[in-house]
Structure formats: structure tokens, C-alpha cells
């Protein structure tokens, strides 16, 4: 796959209902106003730890999350507060998390956006180590497919995090499994203080997708409609079995890495450039120009946000801190949670003998540099007896490379005499034909009979 074929430029405005257009504004503005309040709380020393601003990146969080269905799964990064709001979390959840309150989703055990919910919101908590969510969400996507849920999993990674090993391992695994997984690479130009050009030698972070043979898209991260449309397209592709998809969104981090960081390393002109492209101001203009709203509607939404946040903040501020002894609890799940998969397909399909296969590789390429060899092999394999694929497991797009053969049920009990088999299997490629091994074993046997130390 060539870059030129795999990268699509920004989308045209999607068709949404008036309410949906207004929703996007509501969530972006809620995101911004919530963070604005948290900055004030931080300055009043009411926020215990760090505070990471997503100012200027609201369109990314909101536009991507809005393209998901409620059953889909997401895992936010630190600056994806808008996505949590779209997914149904309340501002109080985010405020109490930052304020380390007992009423927070983690009861004060972790802060910031480090929380989630497996049951209702289908949201997975991030950890501070970047990239780890990529393999995790690959697993979520694989499990969803296995259970027949037809879900899509989505997570974000920054330009900085795109250099981690977990990013590459995870994306490669997702690609090799054709997992229904959307990875949004949120290129906000800065990994803490290091500009993207000093971290990554490629022009677009989306170019990385080429290495994994997956579709990628680039979109304007400060245009919420473009972000939404691009993500929707990616989600639809994943749902129809053509995942994973990588989306690079170009945006800018308007504040420092966290509150403590004045970000003096960012050129003033760059800040001005992006300020002129503020996602909320742009979207307001779009709504006005397209007569989707008027000043009265805007005022209504804004005052609703104000009212809601007043209430949420009051709740958060009045909430107690956790009791100290809570620190001792919850290291293990001792039956406090019931683990049950939500099966949306008959379990029979994945139970022997229905799931059984012939465990052999069907190799369709010799991997030779010689193009004739590949052609000859293809001809030979076409002449050979057509083989049946069980069609129940191998990810569809990979079947050209790997196909499992028609089923042959064998149970553990039917295995051949295992002792005979075991005798032939010795670690490190050393078998009974290896004289040194035979001698060593004989010696050990002798030692044991002589009741001496075995080692």
C-alpha cells in the first residue's frame, strides 16, 4: 500500500440532525468550560495532582467519540476529557478525580482521567505509560469480535506516544488480526517540550500505517465535523471487517504539558496560528453561517453548561476525601466482581467440534525475491486439491495468507501415547540422537541411583 493511496484528505461536512450539530457544540463547550473551572480549582490548591489541558483539542476528543455507538469501547488519554463526556461520564466524575475525592469513580485511588467503567460506559482507564492502550484495545476489539458483539474499539495516542514500542507492537498485532480498532494519532505538535519534527522523521504520522498494511486517514483536528466524519468512516470500515484504521488528526496543544509548564519553548507565532483556528470559534461560525442556530440557542446552551457545572462543582467541592484505611482495600478481586462475557453469538460455534480445525499452515508464498517462484507456486497450489477453510476464526483479510484446514476433532484424551511422544521432545533441540544428551542422561540416572545430589 502506498501512502498516496492510503491517506485521505479532510472530509466534507457530514449530514447530521440539528440536534447532533448542537450536541457537538455542547460537548466541546462543556469540555472547555469544565477545564476552565479546573484551572481555577488548581490555582486554589483544590486539585491534588497535575492538571493537563486539552485547550484547542476539544474537537478531537468530541468528534471522535461522537462517531462511536454506545456499545463501542474507548480508552481515553489524559487530554480526552471531551470523549469521556460524550461517552456519558459527568463533569463531577472528572472534577472529583482531580480533587482525589471519595466520590470519584476510583474513590480517590487514582486521579485525572485515569478511570473507566466496564459495564455501562465501556471505557477503559489509561495508565501514564504511553502506548499501552493500543494492545489493550486490540484485545478489546478481538474479544468483541469473538463474542459476536460487532463492536469497535478506539483509543488515542499523541505524537510523542507514537514512538513507543507498545504503539508498534500493538498496531502490528491489531493489523495482523484485522481487529476492529481505530487508533487516533492526536498530533498536537509537542511531546512535552519536544516538537514532533525532532521525534519523528516522517512527514505525517499517518505514514506509519503503511508499515502495517492498514488504512490511514489524515484530518484537520480543529474541525470537529471533519474529525467526526473521518472517524465515522473509520468506525464503519472497522465494523464491516476492514480494520484497523489509523487516523492522524493535526491539532495543537495550546497550553504547556501540564499546569506547571508555561511552554515557553513554543514559538509565539505558532500559538497565534493555531489560536486563529480555534475549534470552538470555528464551529460556532459554521453553525451561524449555516443557520443551524441563532444567538438565542447559543445563549441557552451556554447557560445550561454554566448551570450544570455549578452544580457539578458544588458536588465535587463538598465531597469528602476517602477514609485512610481504604488504601488497604481492593488489591485483589476476591469475588467482588462477577466476570461474565456478553455472548452475542452461539457458544456452540466456538466449542469443539465446531471450532476444530486441521492445525497446519497453508503457505501461499515462498517469500522468494524471484517473482517466477511465486507464480509457479500459485499454479501448483491451484492444481492441488482445493482446501476448505473453517471460516470461523482466521481474520477474513488474512485468509489469503493463512488458512486453517477443515476440522478434525481430537480431544486431549485421544492423544497418542504421550510418554513416547514426550521422550522425543527435549528442550533446546537436544534429542535422544544427540550423544552428549544420552551420555548426560545416563550419568544423571547413575547419579540418582547412587543417591547423590541430582545437580
Amino acid at each position: 500500500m502506498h501512502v498516496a493511496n492510503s491517506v485521505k484528505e479532510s472530509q466534507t461536512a457530514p449530514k447530521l440532525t440539528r440536534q447532533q450539530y448542537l450536541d457537538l457544540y455542547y460537548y466541546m463547550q462543556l469540555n472547555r468550560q469544565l477545564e476552565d473551572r479546573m484551572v481555577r480549582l488548581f490555582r486554589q490548591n483544590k486539585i491534588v495532582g497535575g492538571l493537563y489541558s486539552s485547550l484547542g483539542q476539544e474537537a478531537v476528543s468530541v468528534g471522535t467519540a461522537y462517531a462511536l455507538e454506545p456499545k463501542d469501547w474507548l480508552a481515553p488519554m489524559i487530554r480526552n476529557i471531551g470523549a469521556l463526556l460524550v461517552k456519558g461520564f459527568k463533569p463531577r466524575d472528572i472534577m472529583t478525580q482531580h480533587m482525589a475525592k471519595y466520590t470519584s469513580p476510583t474513590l480517590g485511588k487514582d486521579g485525572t482521567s485515569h478511570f473507566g467503567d466496564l459495564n455501562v460506559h465501556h471505557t477503559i482507564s489509561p495508565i501514564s505509560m504511553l502506548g499501552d492502550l493500543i494492545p489493550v484495545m486490540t484485545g478489546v476489539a478481538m474479544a468483541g469480535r469473538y463474542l459476536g458483539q460487532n463492536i469497535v474499539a478506539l483509543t488515542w495516542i499523541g505524537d510523542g506516544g507514537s514512538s513507543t514500542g507498545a504503539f508498534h507492537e500493538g498496531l502490528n498485532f491489531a493489523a495482523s488480526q484485522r481487529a476492529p480498532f481505530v487508533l487516533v494519532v492526536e498530533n498536537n505538535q509537542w511531546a512535552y517540550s519536544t516538537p514532533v519534527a525532532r521525534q519523528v522523521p516522517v512527514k505525517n504520522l499517518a505514514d506509519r500505517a503503511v508499515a502495517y498494511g492498514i488504512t490511514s486517514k489524515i484530518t484537520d483536528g480543529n474541525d470537529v465535523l471533519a474529525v467526526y466524519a473521518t472517524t465515522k468512516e473509520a468506525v464503519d470500515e472497522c465494523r464491516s471487517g476492514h480494520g484497523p484504521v489509523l487516523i492522524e488528526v493535526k491539532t495543537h496543544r495550546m497550553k504547556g504539558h501540564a499546569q506547571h509548564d508555561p511552554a515557553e519553548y513554543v514559538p509565539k507565532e505558532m500559538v497565534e496560528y493555531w489560536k486563529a483556528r480555534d475549534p470552538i470559534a470555528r464551529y460556532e461560525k459554521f453553525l451561524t453561517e449555516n443557520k443551524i442556530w441563532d444567538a438565542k440557542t447559543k445563549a441557552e446552551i451556554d447557560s445550561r453548561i454554566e448551570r450544570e457545572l455549578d452544580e457539578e462543582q458544588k458536588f465535587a467541592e463538598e465531597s469528602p476525601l476517602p477514609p485512610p484505611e481504604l488504601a488497604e482495600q481492593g488489591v485483589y478481586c476476591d469475588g467482588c466482581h462477577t466476570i461474565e462475557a456478553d455472548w452475542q453469538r452461539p457458544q456452540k460455534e466456538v466449542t469443539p467440534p465446531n471450532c476444530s480445525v486441521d492445525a497446519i499452515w497453508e503457505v501461499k508464498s515462498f517469500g522468494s525475491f524471484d517473482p517466477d517462484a511465486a507464480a509457479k507456486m500459485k499454479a501448483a497450489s491451484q492444481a492441488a486439491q482445493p482446501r476448505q477453510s473453517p471460516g470461523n476464526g482466521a481474520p477474513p483479510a488474512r485468509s489469503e495468507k493463512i488458512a486453517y484446514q477443515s476440522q478434525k476433532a481430537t480431544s486431549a484424551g485421544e492423544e497418542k501415547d504421550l510418554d513416547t511422544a514426550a521422550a522425543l521432545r527435549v528442550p533446546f533441540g537436544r534429542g535422544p540422537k544427540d550423544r552428549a544428551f544420552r551420555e548426560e542422561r545416563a550419568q544423571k540416572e547413575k547419579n540418582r541411583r547412587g543417591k547423590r545430589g541430582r545437580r
Partner: protein
Amino acid sequence: MAAITMLEGIRQAIFEEMDRDPAVVALGEDIGVYGGAFKVTEGLLARFGPERVVDAPVSETAIVGAACGMGYLGLRPIVEMQFIDFIACCFNQVTNFAAKSHYRWGAPVPMVLRGPSGGGVHGGPFHSANPEMYFMHTPGLKIIYPSTPHDAKGLLKSAVRDNNPVLFFEHKYLYRRIKEEIPAEEYTVPIGKATVRREGKDLTILSYAAMVHTSMEAAETLAKEGIDAEVIDLRTLLPLDRDAILASVKKTNKLLIVHEDTRTGGIAGEIAALVCEGAFEDLDGPIARVTALDTPVPYSPPLEEHFLPNAEKVAAAARELARY
């Protein structure tokens, strides 16, 4: 009822658990078509198909990460590390992601991470490790290190059913060298319970995995000399069976800890502290330990044999202790 190897016990546990519950899936490198580097998963793909037995790329972080994600959706993945040494490659995913998940945000990770460990087979510095202590220091994990086919099978079944990330170390020296008769009917062995391998009254030898057999050998030698050693097999390292350890020490009043892991920061130190806290008044002698040397596991047989504890070293330490 036939005697089976430890490897067969592990195999049976995996097959039986996957038969019992379609939420149980397996992931790892070369576990499918090839059946795993040690053939533990041989026949697994044939029986359960590629959706449930995933031949993964050489990406330990991706494999463990994906297993965490599967766990969140209610699956119970069994992950194979081709050699447990490679767990170092996914250290972050295990210690920061999986282990802290339930404590931080109440999301259990029902995952078993199993793999061949231990030395004595001349695997060299990267195929012989006993990395249990890196993980002993990580709240949220459970660590199992069995010494017999019976326990390996029963404990692995318990591990699969456990709601927490469980590290299951399989001593590769024991894979095919010992055999044991196991019950024909279904059974499990509880996590967190040590067992007495040999009753004795003069001193306690506390051990796990391959060193249990070394300790038993030493105990037989000692018996001939009139020293009656009790041998305790920890079986589970985390959570430690504090009660069993203290009970034995209170009975014999002397404690020798034997482990194949290196000395500094090995489990012997932790157990010594635990005994000092809980049974200091009962001790009639210093807590002794026999361990591997504080070096990487060397490759050449004479070097590795020098590196590892053996029955002579254990017996010698026991004699010394018995003199108190």
C-alpha cells in the same frame, strides 16, 4: 489412572478449562500450529480453532496487553511466554497495567501468564531465569510456582478461574522428569496454600518448584544421619501462606530456605523477615538459606552446576543449622 508428567498436567488443565468454558482463550508465540516451544499446547489449535488459540507475533507487550483487553470483555485468556525470561519485555504491561487495574479502578484482569522457567537445562542467561521476585514486589499479582504434576494441573485450573492476573511459572527441568498419579476426576488446588512434602521435627526446609525435589533429596540424606527435616512446598509465592510457614517454624524451631532464584532480594529474605515478625521467640537458630549465586545464569554445565543449589549444599546447610 496413569502417572503423568508435569507438562501433561499443565496440558490437561488448559484443555479441560477451555472445554469447560468458551470464554477461556489462549494466546502466545508459536502456540498454535507448532504447539509451543515445549509442546505444552500441542493439539490445542486443532481442537479449539484459531479464534481461541491465537498464534501471536513476537510482541510480548502486545500479547499481554491484548489479554488484558480480552479480560475486560469477560474472557479468560491464558498467555504463554515462550520462555518466562521474555516476561521482561512486557514488564510494564504486567506490573503497571494488569496488576494495578483492580485496585485503581475496580476492573479485574482475569489473565493467566504462564511460561517455562528455571535452570538446570543449560539454557544460558536468557532461557533459565527465575524472575518471580520482580513480581513479588507488585501488589495485585498472584504468583504460582508448582513442583508436581498434580499441583501444576490443579493450580493452573484455579488460576484460570481466578479473577486476578496470575503468573504461573513452570519449571522446565520438571516438565518431563517427574511423574505422578493424579485423580481421574476433576480437581483444583487452591491458590495461596503451601503443603507439607515431608513431615519432620528437627528443622524446616522451605522451598518451591524444582528445589522442592532437591530439598527432599537432602532430607532423605539427612534422615540417615538422624536429622529429621520437614519439607514445605510453598506452591504459591503471592500471596504467601504465612500461616503454614509460621506453623512449621513453631514446630521445628529452625528454618532453612532454599530457592533457585539468586540470593540478594530472593524470597528467602522476605520469609526471614516474616518469621522474625511472627515467630522470633520460637527460633532456636539463625534462619539459613541456600540459593543460587548472585550472577546471571551461566551457560556452560560446570558453571551452571556451580551456580545452582543442589542436595549437597542443602544438606550441608541443614547440618550446620541442626547443630544449634
